[in-house]
C-alpha cells in the first residue's frame, strides 16, 4: 500500500484534496485509534491521480531486507554519521533549552535516509482485474472538486466529501464502476444502499464509462420516501 511519511508532503496532498488515512500510533496518545499519526495511507486511485497529473514522482522499488543487507560498511558509516549529526544538533538545542543529559530526547525520524511515465501508469493500473474503470469515476469526481475516502464501511468503494473532511459532511457513497453497456444494476444492492443513504444522508451513486466516448456517466439514487 502507498504510504506517506513526510508531514510536509501530507500537507501538500491535503491542499490537492487527497486526505488519505493516518494509520500510525500517535505517541502522545498511544491508547486510542481516533487520532493517529504518520504514516498516511493512500488509495491506489490517489497514486494514479498524482502520477497522471504529474504531481508526484512515483518511484518503484527490491525487498526491504535485501536493501538492508546490501548496505556496505562505508555507506553504513555515512548513514550513521548523518543520523548522529542530526541527533547531536537536536541535543545541543535541548541542552540549551533546558539550561539534563539523561533527559535528552532521542527521536525517531519519520522519513528514510536509506531509501517512461506511461510505463509507470501501466504498472500502476496493473495493480487492479474491469475494475480499472473505477479510477475514471474517481478522476471525474475529483475534477468536480470532491474529496474521496475509502467507503467500505458505508457500503461503497468511496465516500465523497464536498471539501476537507475536517469541516464537511460527506455527500455520496460511490459504487465500484460497472460496465456501462452490459452490466445490469444490481437492484437489491441499490435498494439497500439507497435506504442506508437516507439514514446517513448520503446519496448512493453508481457510474460507468461509455466505451466509445470514454465519457463517465453517473446516476444518483435516493429513496423516494414512500
Amino acid at each position, binding site marked *: 500500500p502507498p504510504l506517506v511519511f513526510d*508531514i510536509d508532503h501530507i500537507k501538500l496532498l491535503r491542499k490537492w484534496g487527497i486526505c488519505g488515512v493516518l494509520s500510525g500510533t500517535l505517541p502522545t496518545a*498511544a491508547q486510542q485509534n481516533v487520532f493517529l499519526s504518520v504514516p498516511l495511507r493512500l488509495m491506489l486511485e490517489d497514486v494514479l491521480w498524482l502520477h497522471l497529473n504529474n504531481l508526484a514522482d512515483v518511484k518503484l522499488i527490491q*525487498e526491504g531486507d535485501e536493501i538492508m543487507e546490501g548496505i556496505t560498511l562505508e555507506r553504513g558509516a555515512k548513514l550513521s554519521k548523518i543520523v548522529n549529526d542530526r541527533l547531536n544538533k537536536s541535543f545541543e538545542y535541548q541542552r540549551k533549552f533546558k539550561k539534563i543529559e539523561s533527559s535528552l*530526547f532521542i527521536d525517531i525520524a519519520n522519513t528514510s535516509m536509506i531509501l517512461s511515465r506511461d510505463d509507470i501508469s501501466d504498472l500502476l493500473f496493473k495493480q487492479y482485474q474491469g475494475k480499472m474503470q473505477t479510477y475514471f469515476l474517481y478522476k471525474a469526481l475529483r475534477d468536480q472538486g470532491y474529496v474521496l*475516502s*475509502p467507503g467500505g464501511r458505508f457500503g461503497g468503494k468511496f465516500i465523497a466529501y464536498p471539501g476537507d473532511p475536517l469541516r*464537511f459532511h460527506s455527500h455520496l457513497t460511490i459504487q465500484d464502476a460497472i460496465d456501462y453497456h452490459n452490466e445490469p444494476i444490481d437492484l437489491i444492492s441499490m435498494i439497500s444502499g439507497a435506504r442506508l443513504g437516507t439514514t446517513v444522508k448520503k446519496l448512493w451513486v453508481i457510474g460507468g464509462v461509455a466505451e466509445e466516448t470514454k465519457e463517465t456517466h453517473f446516476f444518483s439514487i435516493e429513496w423516494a420516501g414512500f
Partner: protein
Amino acid sequence: KDYEPDGTNLQDLLLYNASKAMFDTISDSIRGTTVKSEVRGYYVPHKHQAVLLKPKGSFMQTMGRADSGELWLDFHEFVYLAERGTILPYYREILLSMEDLYSLFSSQQEMDQYFVFAHLKRLGFILKPSNQEAAVKTSFFPYTTSPQLYQGLNRLVRSVAVPKNKKELLDAPLTFKVWKPHSNFKKRDPGLPDFQVFVYNKNDDLQHFPTYKELRSMFSSLDYKFEFLSEIDDDWETNSYVPRKEYIHPPHIQQNRRLKTGYRSFIIAIMDNGLISFVKMSEADFGSESVW
C-alpha cells in the same frame, strides 16, 4: 461540521484552525525515548525479527521471547513498540526511521496484518500470530395438531448441525489469537485466547471474502474460549488441556439468545485502504430450533 463550502472567510478560518490543530499535533508528537529510558532493538533481516540486548519495560510481560537473556521481538511487535516510542529501532549502528521500518514488511498482507495488530494493541488487547505456539500449549481439545404438521414439513430440507455443547464440540488460516487485556497474562503460558481474528483486505483482488466452505473449515479450526458453552476462568482451567488445572497444580428467551448469538465464532478484520472494520461471524443453527 458544515454541509458544503459557502465561500465565507469564517468557514475558511474554521477549516484552517481544524487543519492546523491536526498538523500541530502530529508534528509535536515526536516518537522516541529519553536517553535515560533508552532501549535499543536491533533488526535481524534473515530472521525478520528484532533482538533487544538489554530488554526492559512492562511490554515484556506480553511481547517477545527471551532466549537463554536477550529478548526477540516479532516484526509486528518491533514496529509497534518503535512507533509508540517505547524502543529505538536500530540496524547494526544506524537508527532507523519509521519509513525504513515500513519498507521492511515482506508483503502487503503482512502490513495489513500489522495495521490490525496495532489497532487492537492500542486498545490493550494481547495478540499472537495464530501459527505461533506458546511454550505451554493449551488446547480445548485433548394430523391432530399443528406441530404434527410441522414435523411432517421439516424433514425435507437438510440443515448443517453445528456443535452446540461441549460434547458435540469434542465429537467434532486465521491470523491472530487475541486475549482481552488482563494484568496477569503469562506469555509462556497464556491459556486459551478469547477471540481469533482473520485479516482480509477488501481491495485486494487476490483475496476474497470467505465462502461457506471456507467459513466452515475456519470454524472447525477454532480453538479458543468458546463463549457459547453454558457448562463453562476457573472452569476453563478444568476444561482445557495441556486438564490444565492438573498441569498447573425461560426457555423461549434462551432459544432467542441461541438464535441471535449462535455458536462458534471468529472475527474478520476488514482492511479498506487504512480504515479497519470488524465483523463477528458466528455459526447458527435454525434447523435445530422450532418456533411454532
